[in-house]
């Protein structure tokens, strides 16, 4: 099934201009906002994906939806548009749209792959990388 793959074909994985806005905010308050948010993201991404895989194995969709909800906002804030969209759709699919198992499976695969892609985009922005 490639329903979401086709749906997301025009969405960019990463929008670097989002980080520019955060960098400016950081300069204004003299704090390294980008580094703080990136460090948080790397930690949260690792634990979220590990938990998501476990909950998927256990067919615990409720917890998967909760994880998707928690993780998506930070992804959006960092300009990870496709990942943000996939997490949002996964949350809505489970909570409000009947949780079709094929679609859930497709989205989990997309999220897994997209998470790896996004980490590679973000690593160069981390201080000391």
């Amino acid at each position, binding site marked *: 099934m490639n329903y979401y793959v086709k749906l997301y074909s025009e969405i960019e994985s990463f929008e670097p201009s989002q980080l520019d806005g955060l960098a400016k905010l950081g300069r204004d*308050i003299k*704090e390294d906002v980008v580094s703080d948010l990136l460090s948080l993201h790397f930690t949260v991404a690792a634990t979220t994906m590990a938990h998501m895989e476990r909950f998927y194995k256990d067919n615990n969709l409720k917890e998967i939806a909760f994880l998707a909800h928690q993780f998506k906002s930070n992804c959006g804030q960092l300009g990870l548009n496709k990942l943000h969209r996939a997490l949002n759709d996964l949350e809505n699919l489970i909570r409000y749209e009947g949780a079709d198992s094929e679609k859930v499976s497709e989205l989990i695969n997309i999220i897994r792959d997209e998470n790896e892609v996004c980490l590679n985009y973000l690593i160069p922005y981390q201080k000391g990388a």
Partner: protein
Amino acid sequence: MAKYVIQRMGYNPVLLENAKKLIATLQSMPVATIVLDYEMPELSGLDVLKKIKKMPSLSLIPIVMLTGNSSPAHVKDTILQGAVDYIVKPIDPAIFESKINKILKNDISANKQAWIEYELSRNKNHQVRIYNYCEIVSIGEVSLTLNTNQDYPVGYTFFSDSPLFQELEIKNPALKVESSILKDGYFLVQCSLLGLSEAELKKIRLYQKLLSPSRAA
């Protein structure tokens, strides 16, 4: 993220993990505005909102819901329970700052009273359908202006079914009336846009660019 923006505005943000700590803090120090997350441990943001609104000493503190959930039902429930705004994550720092600034400058208690009285008088008597002529005169990321035959009370919140939003593929947003001026027999009503996600705001930005400069908000 919200914490950083509020810091930049010159305020001192206090981060609290749950409702118990929030209530304790509100009772021990003056607070200008509360920014609530919808999904929290033990009590949801909506339940916390209801709880605070029932406490006379705290009920007038403006409360903003900040959440990743953009469903119209959540927006409606939140505004009906007394939140002054509903902001969808991820936040645009400039828009968030603009909204918080406006809230801090407004006399929120007067707006809320006007909205409640208007709704109550309709429900007490009978169901009346009033068909209002509405034309969107200008639209921006945080507000739009309507030309309409109906005088809306300041603070009144409603959902717009303008075909413009269908055209932009945006779910009908909640509109909160900020001002209403009588001009040439019609009312120019300025409304805040509530509950729009970043993706939807992008569509409005693109639409603004297509408009002639004289019409863009």
